[in-house]
C-alpha cells in the first residue's frame, strides 16, 4: 500500500458529486447490471462444477428409473411409456433446477459480498435476476440431457427436431418464470436449509400432482380437478404436443400465460422482500 507513491489525482469535490448524482436507475442500466451479475454467477458456476451434478444426474437417473418402474404398469411396455414420460421428466427436472436457484441465492445473500451489492447504486433487482439469467445454462443442460437420455432408451419423438427444440425452449422459459417463486422464498426464509424445506413442499405437490407421469383419467375426480389446473400439467401437455406431434396447442398459450402471471406476482414480491432485508 504505497499510497504516498500514487500519482497525484485531482481532489474529490463533494458538491460536484452531489450535483452529478443520478436520481434513479434506468431500464438500460438495469439490464446491463443484470448481465454483469449473470457473468458473476456464471464464473461461480464454472468454478464450482458440483453445481452441475443435479442438472446432469437427475435427468439421466430419473428417466431410466421411471421408465423401467412405471413403463410396464402404465403403458404396457417401456417404449410406449416414453412419449408420455419424457416431457414429464422434462418438467420435473426444470422445476428441481429452479428450486436450486432459491437455495443458492439464500446462501449467497448470507455472504459479505451482498452487503456491497446493497451499498452500490445499482438496481435492486439485478442481484436477483443475474443468477437467474446464468441459470438458463443449467436449464438448457437439464432439458437437453432429458431428451438425450430418452433417445438413448428408444424414444423417437414424432414432432421431430423442431418439435423437441420448441418443447425445450418452453420448458426453459417455464423454469425461469417459476424460479421467481423460489427466489422469493429465498428472500423470505431464515436460512438456506429453510429455503430447501419450503421449496420441497412447493415442488412435490406441483410435480407429482400433475399429469407428468400418469394419465389424468386414472385419478379420482377431486385429484384430477387439481391436476387439471396445475401449471405443471399445462407445461407437460404442451411439451407432449410439441415433442410428439409438432403441435402448437392451446396448452402452449396457457403455459405462457401462467408463466407471465407468476413473474408479474413474484418478481415484485422478491424485490420488495430483498429490499426489506436491509
Amino acid at each position, binding site marked *: 500500500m504505497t499510497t504516498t507513491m500514487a500519482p497525484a489525482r485531482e481532489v474529490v469535490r463533494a458538491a460536484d458529486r452531489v450535483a452529478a448524482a443520478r436520481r434513479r436507475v434506468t431500464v438500460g442500466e438495469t439490464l446491463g447490471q443484470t448481465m454483469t451479475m449473470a457473468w458473476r454467477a456464471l464464473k461461480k458456476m464454472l468454478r464450482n462444477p458440483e453445481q452441475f451434478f443435479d442438472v446432469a444426474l437427475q435427468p439421466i437417473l430419473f428417466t431410466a428409473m421411471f421408465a423401467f418402474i412405471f413403463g410396464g404398469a402404465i403403458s404396457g411396455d417401456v417404449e410406449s411409456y416414453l412419449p408420455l414420460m419424457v416431457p414429464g421428466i422434462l418438467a420435473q427436472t426444470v422445476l428441481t433446477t429452479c428450486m436450486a436457484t432459491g437455495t443458492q441465492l439464500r446462501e449467497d445473500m448470507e*455472504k459479505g459480498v451482498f452487503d456491497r451489492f446493497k451499498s452500490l447504486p445499482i438496481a435492486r433487482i439485478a442481484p436477483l435476476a443475474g443468477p437467474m439469467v446464468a441459470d438458463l445454462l443449467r436449464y438448457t443442460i437439464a432439458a437437453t440431457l432429458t431428451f438425450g437420455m430418452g433417445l438413448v432408451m428408444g424414444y423417437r419423438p414424432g414432432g421431430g427436431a423442431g418439435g423437441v427444440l420448441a418443447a425445450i425452449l418452453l420448458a426453459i422459459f417455464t423454469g425461469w418464470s417459476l424460479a421467481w417463486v423460489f427466489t422469493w422464498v429465498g428472500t423470505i426464509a431464515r436460512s438456506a436449509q429453510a429455503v430447501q424445506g419450503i421449496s420441497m413442499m412447493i415442488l412435490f405437490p406441483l410435480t407429482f400432482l400433475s399429469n407428468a407421469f400418469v394419465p389424468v383419467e386414472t385419478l379420482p375426480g377431486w385429484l384430477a380437478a387439481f391436476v387439471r389446473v396445475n401449471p405443471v400439467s399445462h407445461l407437460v401437455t404442451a411439451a407432449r404436443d410439441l415433442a410428439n406431434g409438432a403441435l402448437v396447442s392451446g396448452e402452449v398459450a396457457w403455459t405462457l400465460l401462467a408463466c407471465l402471471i407468476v413473474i408479474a406476482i413474484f418478481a415484485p414480491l422478491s424485490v420488495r422482500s430483498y429490499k426489506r432485508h436491509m
Partner: protein
Amino acid sequence: MSITELGRTDGGPAPGVGTDPAVRTEGLVKTFGEHRAVDGIDLNVRAGEIFGVLGPNGAGKTTTLRMLATLLKIDAGRAEIFGVDVAGNPHVIRQLVGVTGQYASVDENLTARENLWLFSRLQGIAAPRARRIAAELLGRFGLEEAADKAIAQFSGGMRRRLDLAASLITRPPLIFLDEPTTGLDPRTRGQMWDTIRGLVAQGCTVLLTTQYLDEADQLADRVAVIDHGRKVAEGTPDELKTAVGNSALQLLLADPDEVPAAVEVVRRVLGSEPVLSPERGRLNVALDQADLAGEVLIALRTAGVSISSVSVAKPSLDEVFLALTGHGTEEGR
C-alpha cells in the same frame, strides 16, 4: 509544498475541509425488537476530516454506519449526507458513499482483479476503463502479485485492502470504514492508517468506527464515544485523553484492605481520584505524564502500602469508559 504549508504544525484543516457537514444526524434510532441498538445519536462530521466513532462491541457503531450507508432502515430521526436526505434518496447516497465493512465484502468466488472489474462494471464504468481502474487499484494496494489468485488464499490484511480498493472505484467523496484494522497485525495496521490518511489528502471525508483509543488518536480529527446506542462524549482525541490522562498506572495491591490508604496517597500526590476496578485490590490511576508513576510508587512505599503488581500503559478503551461513564465496557451486557 509551499513554505506556509510546511509551517503548519497544528494539524490545521486538510485540503478540501469546508464548513458544510459531510454527515449530519439528529436523534438517529434503530430498534431490533425490544432492543434499542442505536438510541438517538447526533453526529456532525465536517467535510474533509476523519471522524472516529469509538465504542465497545455492541455499542451501536456498526448499526449507525449501516443506517447511514442505506443498508438498514432508519427507524427514527434524520440523517443527511452532503445535504442529501439518506432515507429519501438512497440511490443518490449510494453514489456518494464507499463502504468497507467489518467483514470483507468481496466475492470469494472471484479473483481480486475480477472483483474490482465486477464492481466497476456494475457502476456503469466502460470495460476498458474498468480494466485500467482495476490494474491501478491493485498496484496502489500492493495486490498485483495476488491479482489473479483465488481470494480464499488471501490473508486477512489482503482481504481488507481489496475491500477498501473496491470502495474507492468511483472515488466517492465520503468513505465509511467499519473497524478497518480489527484483527490485523501491527505492520498491516500501520499501512492501513497511512492509506486512510492518503484518502483525506485527496479530499475525501472518512467516517470510521474503532474499538481502539490509539487508533482514534492516530487518525481521527474528532471522536464520538458511543455506549449502549448513545453518544457519551465527543471531542478531539486530545480532549478525550485529557479527561482520561495520557497514560494509566495500574496497581494491584498485595492486601485489598489497603485500598483506602492507597487512594489517599494518590489523592495527595496527584490531586486526582483513582478509579477502582471491579477486581478487588486493583486501582487505575490516570496520569498526565508517565513519569508521575514513579512519584506515586515512592509515595506508596513511604506510606507502607505494598504492591503485588504494577504496570504503566496507554489508557485502554475500558479506562476511557470508566472515566467517561463510570462503568467498564463489559458492565450491564
